């Protein structure tokens, strides 16, 4: 990756579904680098925020602006959905798929697939049907399939929800490696421990509103809003 990842801003962003506001209005800028964790309880609007940033969901009002032209921004992004979407194909074909779309040649695809299968620990499962993998394996496959295009920006929506400790650790290791390789990561979670382990900066959402945004140690040690403080202390915040 030669180019630096782009930064992104939301201005006056508002998402309405069936007449109800589920996100915003909010103004938010995310820098071009780092590991941003979007934190908040269930229903806070984390998934909506991520999808809007990635462009798979539309804003009702306002705008998303990347520091590069839209088409270029989309090409350099990858997204891992909350419940991983497995193509009804083998693990090998799932990994190859994003590269095939780009028309890469077979030899290069095979090499990358072998490499990534190794990294996600599925090298012995290459010919198994992806929809029949375990939850942890699916999540790793979805992550490998997202990273195989070497994206500049990676979105992840609660990648470790419902996973056991071992799978969570493996995924976090893959994410740290990707971050080290220069990928900018934006990830949601409602797991505070995970946020502490991974985040360089945080966005705290509650009921569709942005309550706080800050750098990692400061946010955890000295939250500025009462809601963030309550959430960090483990109170039930809805």
């Amino acid at each position, binding site marked *: 990756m030669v180019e630096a990842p782009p930064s992104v801003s939301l201005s006056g962003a508002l998402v309405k579904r069936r007449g109800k506001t589920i996100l915003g209005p909010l103004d938010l800028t995310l820098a071009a680098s780092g590991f941003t964790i979007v934190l908040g309880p269930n229903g806070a609007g984390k998934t909506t925020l991520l999808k809007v940033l*990635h462009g*798979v969901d539309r804003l009702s009002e306002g705008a998303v602006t990347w520091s590069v032209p839209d088409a270029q921004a*989309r*090409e350099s*992004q*990858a*997204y891992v*959905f909350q419940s991983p*979407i497995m*193509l*009804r*194909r*083998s693990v090998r074909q799932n990994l190859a*798929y*994003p590269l095939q*779309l780009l028309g890469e040649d077979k030899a290069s695809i095979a090499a990358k697939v072998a490499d990534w299968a190794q990294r996600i620990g599925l090298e012995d499962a290459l010919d198994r*049907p992806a*929809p*029949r993998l375990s939850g942890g394996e699916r999540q790793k496959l979805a992550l490998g399939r997202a990273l195989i295009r070497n994206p500049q920006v990676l979105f992840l929506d609660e990648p470790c929800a419902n996973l056991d400790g071992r799978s969570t650790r493996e995924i976090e290791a893959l994410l740290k490696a990707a971050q080290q390789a220069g990928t900018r990561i934006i990830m949601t979670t409602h797991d505070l421990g995970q946020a502490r382990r991974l985040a360089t900066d945080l966005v705290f959402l509650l009921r569709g509103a942005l309550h706080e945004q800050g750098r990692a140690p400061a946010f955890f040690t000295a939250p500025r809003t009462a809601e963030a403080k309550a959430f960090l202390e483990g109170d039930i915040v809805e």
Partner: protein
Amino acid sequence: MNEIWAGIQAAFRLIFSLDADLVEITLRSLQVSLTALVVASVIALPFGTWLAIRRFRYRRATIATLNALMGLPPVVVGLIVYLLLSRSGPFGVMGLLFTPTAMIIAQVIIITPLIASITHQAMRELWAEYHDLLISLNTTKRQRIATLIWDGRRTLLTAALAGFGRAIGEVGAIMIVGGNIDHATRVLTTAIALETGKGDFALALGLGFVLIALALLVNFAIHALSRTEREGTW
């Protein structure tokens, strides 16, 4: 009772001696219904897929029409095709009435809505499953359709088989437009109807067994396909 028993024995003799009439009629049946299947599939598979992923103004109405067409009584289809192809009808000059082509046309009209409807259902499900991923990966429209058709190929084959099963067993429409002419338009179902009427149970039963075998084969194939789909062996 004796007569029926004798009929069954004679039927098996016809089948195992590869009786010329029986073979001719069976092959014509296969030729007509397979041709109808190919034509109907070429129309129905892309159309059903397109209906599943494309949003347009009269989508609901189109789907409702499709489902209504699926329920068309074959005899009525036969009547309409007859009127269209008869000497005084709009396509009368083509001289197609009482030819295998007329029977193919009728069967295409009968099975296209069925295949399109099953395709639409299956593709809508698959599209709902894949939608976010395909959008996220910036796929072109062509790539989306290709992915859906490839990953839904088993269901599409099932739809086609269901269409074939319906075509090969259909009698009312092709009797009207084909006329059940010996050595020209006589097929399994119309021959069975005729021979039964004449009291020649041997040939009727022999043809009946062939028809049952074909129908069973189609159903086994559908069953096997749905099992590979369920077990994810691919």
